[in-house]
């Protein structure tokens, strides 16, 4: 447990730590423990009695960051330091910040450390230093993976001076990100309790994931649109955008630009990370002690029951037991953070997809042509949320709670599946549909109302099929997330292709005069059959 390459590297700096008053052998012990645990970070599904010495999964995932990093390379060929590096650092900061928040929040906010180590004869500074080194190690690996190739390219394209400066700036950037994250968490913890912080982190993760999704689309498109001719115009807001500081630093050092504003920005690039670093070190004890809030529970607010919602639920699920499972699913899907992280970004993406396609259409024709055309079939994309969500509902972070299914006197297994399917439709499909339908009607006029109705009916039928295919016999929220493997993704993807089939049938019936009415009728009958007999089959085959 104490023979990691990183530790042996660190050993060379041991005197340095000792001089700083840090108990190096303790530091090494703690870091060794942390690294050992990291190799086992992937949660074990079932309590294993023998350990398979796992590989460090973090290191295995680094190649993805190398791919991300490639996005930076085109900008190395631009002939304007300012613009070039602002963009490059903008991208890098985004990538690193995202992973900092999603992968290292847990490390930064680990409360166990405090209770475990503070009660032992180890001083606070050694513990804090160990924590910081632990994160720094990973941040460095991540940074190297992301920027390794661009750095080498820059050495050949932009010269040695550029390369060195780039490298130095990356180190500063790392400081800045680490400190910023810690300080933001610290600030949040001052005002809110731990649950709120976890929710905010979860929200940021979701937002950033969605940001990546959409960002890539936009970046890809903006290349076609804008010619890359940028000149620098100073503006006050640049004082608050770290990527621009680094651009300015390059400009100042490499071109000898000496205008006052550029110098100010360049100085910021150096000074702010250093100040943040000092501030962080000074604040560590306060930060650590405010972490205790993470484990305190604040009384939740009482939720008022919404009568309208109650009535609606009563309408779509008259059976009380089935409604009970609907409410249970609602509560789980709303509160389960990991579920939200996996599902919400994709739901958000569903809002955008149809318009991305329309946008491409408009580029090729006019808006008028679009309105007259048949792009309203893009409404079928709203169905994507259904397999996305349904392929995830059988997982839960608290899957062990599923013993209740076995212990409770369940009248009928079908009620669980139907309640679940309905809750997914209500919670995810309904909002997407209700928001996009008016937009579509505004774009394509009222002539498409019957088409939309057909698509909504399809959604109801499709949701039942998805539950049958994707969930089969498994109970909702009854398996740990780590089982969520690729085959699940493949199944969900196959189900997405089915949407195309439905769309095709729709197009065919549309060629008929009263084809749509007939098709709608067929769909309603199919819904009736699948929602009753189809669900029955799960139970029978059990």
């Amino acid at each position, binding site marked *: *447990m104490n023979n990691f390459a990183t530790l042996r590297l660190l050993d060379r700096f041991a005197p340095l730590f000792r001089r700083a008053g840090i108990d190096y052998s*303790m530091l090494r*012990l*703690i870091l060794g*423990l942390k690294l*050992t*645990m990291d190799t*086992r*970070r992937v949660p*074990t599904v079932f*309590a*294993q*009695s*023998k*350990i398979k010495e796992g590989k460090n999964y973090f290191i295995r995932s680094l190649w993805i960051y190398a791919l991300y990093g490639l996005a930076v390379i085109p900008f190395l060929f631009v002939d304007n330091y300012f613009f070039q590096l602002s963009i490059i650092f903008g991208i890098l900061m985004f990538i690193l910040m995202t992973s900092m928040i999603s992968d290292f929040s847990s490390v930064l906010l680990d*409360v*166990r450390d*405090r*209770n*475990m*180590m*503070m*009660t*032992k*004869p*180890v*001083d*606070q500074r050694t513990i804090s230093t160990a924590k910081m080194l632990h994160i720094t190690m990973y941040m460095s690996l991540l940074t190297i993976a992301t920027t390794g190739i661009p750095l080498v390219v820059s050495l050949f394209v932009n010269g040695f001076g550029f390369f060195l400066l780039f490298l130095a700036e990356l180190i500063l950037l790392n400081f800045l990100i680490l400190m910023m994250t810690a300080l933001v968490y610290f600030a949040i913890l001052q005002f809110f309790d731990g649950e709120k912080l976890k929710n905010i982190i979860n929200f940021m993760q979701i937002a950033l994931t969605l940001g990546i999704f959409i960002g890539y689309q936009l970046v890809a498109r903006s290349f076609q649109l804008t010619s890359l001719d940028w000149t620098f115009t100073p503006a006050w807001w640049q004082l608050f955008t770290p990527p621009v500081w680094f651009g300015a630093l390059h400009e100042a050092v490499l071109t000898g630009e000496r205008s006052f504003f550029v110098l100010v920005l360049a100085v910021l690039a150096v000074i702010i990370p250093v100040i943040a670093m000092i501030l962080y070190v000074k604040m560590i004890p306060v930060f650590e*002690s405010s972490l205790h809030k993470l484990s305190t529970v604040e009384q939740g607010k009482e939720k008022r029951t919404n009568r309208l919602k109650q009535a609606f639920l009563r309408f779509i699920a008259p059976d009380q037991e089935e409604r009970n499972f609907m409410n249970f699913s609602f509560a789980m899907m709303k509160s389960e953070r990991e579920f939200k992280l996996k599902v919400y970004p994709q739901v958000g993406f569903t809002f955008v997809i149809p318009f991305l396609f329309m946008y491409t259409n408009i580029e090729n024709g006019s808006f008028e042509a679009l309105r007259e055309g048949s792009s309203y079939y893009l409404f079928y994309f709203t169905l994507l949320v259904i397999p996305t969500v349904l392929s995830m509902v059988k997982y839960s972070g608290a899957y062990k709670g599923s013993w209740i299914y076995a212990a409770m006197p369940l009248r009928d297994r079908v009620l669980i599946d139907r309640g679940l399917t309905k809750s997914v439709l209500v919670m995810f499909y309904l909002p997407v549909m209700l928001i996009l339908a008016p937009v579509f009607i505004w774009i394509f006029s009222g002539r498409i109302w019957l088409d939309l109705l057909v698509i909504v009916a399809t959604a109801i039928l499709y949701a039942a099929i998805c539950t049958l295919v994707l969930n089969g016999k498994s109970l909702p929220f009854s398996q740990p997330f780590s089982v969520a493997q690729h085959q699940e993704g493949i199944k969900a993807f196959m189900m997405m292709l089915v949407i195309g089939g439905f769309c095709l049938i729709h197009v065919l019936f549309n060629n008929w005069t009263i084809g749509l009415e007939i098709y709608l009728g067929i769909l309603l009958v199919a819904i009736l059959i699948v929602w009753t007999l189809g669900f029955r089959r799960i139970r029978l085959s059990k």
Partner: protein
Amino acid sequence: MERQEVIRLEHVTKRFGDKLVLEDIDLSVYEGDIIGYIGPNGAGKSTTVKMMLGLVDGYEGNILIFGENLKDQDHTYKKRIGYVPENAELYDSLTAQEYLAFIAGLYGLEEDLAREKAHRLMMKFEIDHVMNARLSSFSKGMRQKVLIISSLLHNPDVLFLDEPLSGLDANSMLIVREILAQLSAQGKTIFYSSHIMDIVEKISNRIVLISNGHIAADGTFDELKEQNQKGSLQDIFNSLTGFSQHKEIAEDFVAIVQEEPA
């Protein structure tokens, strides 16, 4: 033989925000004491322990451990302290062996020695066969045994135990109780918090009851019995914490359970 004072609290007051948790606590603890530290939930028991361990600071008054004020001490005094927290979180992904080696390392024990000692202690608790299994697969009782071992590996002079018997089976409980008695006979000091009065009554040679941030009682079980004219520690506890309606509450509870739906 003059017994040495190990811990002294002088006028200790602690607030969380506006909430007064402990008020003007004075307490002296001597070597060989097994103190049953009891009190209702939220009375400030674990806060006291956490303050002595340096987990919580920002209190008024003085805490002296081994004769030295905590405010003037660095972390080294913890070498002589062992701690079993309540609901202890463990580093689940480690094996028992790795975990114990780590804790021993934090206490500055030599690695091979610690390993060997941990193994022998685990054998005594009959959990040596799972030495190389991950803690995440352990039952509550097994985890508790690991925790107890981890608190004793470095042969501490003072032990803070919070519900140390929880999850243990009857036989293991007997062993642990005997261990505590023998440690105390050797002059070790034990600070024992629990909600199970029967055990506290039997295990401790001195009982400190804390209620609403004050020490409500302090003495041997016999002294407390005499002062309060009650037969069991449970009764003393109820009378000192001003709680007498357990029958009424239970009756109400059962009545609600048995209500027929309207």
